[in-house]
């Protein structure tokens, strides 16, 4: 039987934010629908309403013209709406089978038979008796999907399902989703990844700031058109004017950087030598795990290596710790925003105060000058267009893009001469990525330098003046980026050689 899901005039208002503003959409079985939007566009709120986790302030949901009252997750289940959340709803310490049996109504024996049928039918390879914490992210997701399938759902909602998957796992997921669709399950696919929408989905609804701004057939869309709808303005094509001038001063020079570690999970670095000129962006490409982590930590002073010389603004800084290096006007933006760059439990203004010790007058006689810090934080929030002006907000409630803007703002407000960043746009949506890229270009325009360590070749080609590739702890020769193509980078990143 065909399924027809209709949501009409759904609104949900949180204090200070309209998460869903009069959303109406219609879905029919036999198709895969994409719900596309940036972080914070209201997609997750909408699916939480559909799955009964939260109730809307206004509006109704109809399944085959029957008005559903979804006041708890049980209601959604009863009405055959299945949901796979971005953050898995699994019990890590229980076995796979226990996870699946917890809401089953049948006895364990027949349940096991049914699960095994599903495993076989869709080619899932999962041991039912191991604890879930031993599974990979892709397997955990399969457990979630099986849980939905056991209730023979009419609707299956997937919330950002590929954010934790490897490429291989993503492909497997897409194959399964297409199978489910052929079997008549209505699939709603929530994402901010444009390419996935184009390769998987039939129809796409774009959400922005809580509203549905467009519904269209995917075949009529391209990456650019979708991106513009999602962000709400024409995204400027960013391309930096490459700026290689021989007679500029070298502001940063690294010689004989060697690093040896006994830890099998760390990469040894072998004799790295490079320098950065004033106003230049040096890109360092590579597949992750080739020594970028170690390199970043050495450049930031978290790791001190012997016999290395690092000259910054004509001073030897190789033995200085990160705090001292900051005082010489270096700034750092690490890869892991949550655990390395910011303390999620602290409020925004407290995070701002964390790395501005000496240059600021945040602290007087050992006491915190809250007023000053808050004033300063407000300036960062507005200068770097973070979408809140509440400096009392805990940092963990910022989306990835906004947190990254806050971190960059915090680093840049001290007007550093050199910014070292590692994967600054990792996991962000298009709008935030564009903003960060513009910011990084602006830094170079102001004659300040940057080192960009990134695993994203597109980003490197866009932003760097010169590029080197790191492979197994060794650095390739440094090339002007107008001589570099993605293919060349690819070869070097895979350990091959060019010329």
């Amino acid at each position, binding site marked *: 039987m065909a399924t027809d899901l209709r949501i009409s005039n759904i609104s949900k208002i949180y204090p200070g934010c309209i998460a869903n503003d009069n959303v109406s959409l219609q879905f029919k079985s036999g198709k895969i629908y994409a719900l596309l939007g940036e972080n914070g566009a209201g997609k997750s709120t909408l699916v939480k309403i559909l799955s009964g986790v939260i109730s809307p302030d206004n509006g109704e949901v109809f399944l085959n013209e029957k008005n559903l009252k979804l006041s708890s997750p*049980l209601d959604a289940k009863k009405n055959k709406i299945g949901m796979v959340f971005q953050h898995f*709803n699994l*019990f890590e*310490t*229980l076995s796979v089978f*226990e996870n699946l049996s917890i809401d089953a109504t049948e006895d364990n024996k027949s349940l096991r038979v049914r699960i095994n049928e599903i495993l076989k039918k869709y080619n899932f390879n999962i041991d039912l008796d191991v604890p879930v914490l031993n599974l990979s992210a892709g397997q955990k997701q399969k457990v979630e999907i099986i849980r939905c399938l056991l209730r023979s759902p009419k609707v299956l909602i997937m919330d950002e399902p590929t954010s934790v998957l490897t490429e291989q796992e993503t492909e497997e997921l897409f194959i399964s989703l297409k199978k489910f669709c052929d079997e008549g399950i209505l699939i709603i696919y929530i994402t901010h990844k444009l390419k996935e929408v184009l390769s998987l989905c039939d129809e796409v609804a774009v959400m922005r700031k809580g509203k549905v701004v467009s519904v269209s057939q995917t075949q009529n869309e391209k990456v650019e058109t979708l991106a513009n709808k999602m962000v709400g303005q024409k995204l400027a094509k960013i391309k930096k004017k490459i700026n290689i001038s021989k007679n500029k001063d070298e502001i940063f020079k690294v010689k004989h950087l060697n690093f040896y570690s006994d830890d099998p999970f760390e990469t040894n670095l072998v004799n790295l030598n490079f320098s950065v000129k004033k106003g230049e962006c040096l890109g360092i490409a590579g597949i992750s795990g080739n020594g970028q982590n170690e390199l970043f930590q050495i450049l930031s002073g978290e790791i001190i290596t012997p016999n290395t010389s690092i000259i910054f603004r004509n001073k030897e800084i190789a033995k200085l710790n990160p705090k001292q290096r900051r005082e010489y006007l270096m700034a750092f933006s690490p890869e892991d925003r949550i655990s390395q760059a910011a303390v999620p439990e602290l409020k925004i203004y407290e995070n701002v105060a964390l790395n501005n010790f000496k240059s600021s007058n945040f602290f007087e006689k050992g006491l915190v000058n809250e007023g000053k810090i808050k004033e300063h934080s407000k300036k960062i929030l507005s200068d770097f267009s973070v979408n809140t002006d509440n400096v009392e907000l805990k940092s963990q409630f910022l989306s990835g893009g906004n947190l990254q803007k806050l971190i960059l703002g915090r680093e840049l407000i001290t007007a550093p001469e050199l910014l070292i960043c590692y994967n600054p746009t990792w996991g962000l949506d298009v709008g935030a990525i564009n903003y960060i890229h513009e910011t990084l270009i602006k830094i170079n325009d102001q004659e300040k330098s940057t080192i960009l360590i990134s695993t994203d070749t597109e980003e490197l080609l866009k932003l760097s003046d010169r590029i080197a590739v790191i492979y197994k702890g060794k650095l390739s020769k440094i090339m002007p980026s107008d001589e570099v193509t993605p293919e060349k980078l690819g070869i070097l990143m895979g350990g091959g050689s060019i010329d």
Partner: protein
Amino acid sequence: MSLDISFIGILIGSIMASSVPLILAASGELITERSGVLNLGVEGMMIIGAISGFALMVITDNLFIAIIGSMLSGVIISLIFGFLTQSLLTNHVATGLALTIFGIGLSAMLGKDFVGIPGKDFPILFSSLRESIPFFGPILFGHSIILYFAFVLPFLTNYFLKKTKLGLVVRAVGDSPISASNQGINVILVRYCCILYGGGMCGLAGAYLSLIYTPQWIENMTAGRGWIALALVVFATWSPIKVLIGAIIFGGISILQLHMQAVGFRIPVQFLIALPYLMTIIVLVVISRDSRKIKLNTPTSLGRIFYKEK
């Protein structure tokens, strides 16, 4: 020689008796903690159970009512904890500590008129067998029904947690209340039930002390056993069987060190008094050193406040 053997039998019997309150309280607290709730009020709930059991025995002269009443009083006082932590979302640790202090104070007040009143003999089962079989008689027979219940309880608890649907639900709630809630499980209700069950078992443990073990009311007569029970749960890594082992070791060494003191071993008394604590911890740490198993048994959400998204 036969005298020595029967003495050892009696010694083992008394060790078993001394570990009963620990087994009861720790088994109850284990269920509470498995649901993700950390109730540090064990000592307070035990002492309330002790005084209400004793008071009811004196007033009604009926041991059955006394036992049931002590459990109910444990349930009621744990309901305060449940209401505060689950409905008003207060901090588990602070609320539990307050519960203990409250329980000790309240029991002292209620118990004023009951000091010095002699207790009643609690019926013992199979007392004829106790005398007629050497060695095994005093170990296996001639105990109160509560003791037999206490020694079966850890196995029942283990069965409940591992084999029953409800046990699975309790473990799931303790692992991830948010996931459980999203699966349609009423997390607050499950946690309330576990808290009340824990309270009831602590009440019973207290009544065992004031009605059976030392049948009288003495102010503060639980003497820290509630804290030992709490520690047992953690050191036994939330495994009921290990709780039983830990309680027996603790009870055993407590009794043995008394005998050692009496015999006059040349060991400082302070060390002997510390010995049960030390040995229990060492043994439990040694038998629980499989870190993978610890991870699987530990309730991940222990002590964390859960509230439902609206």
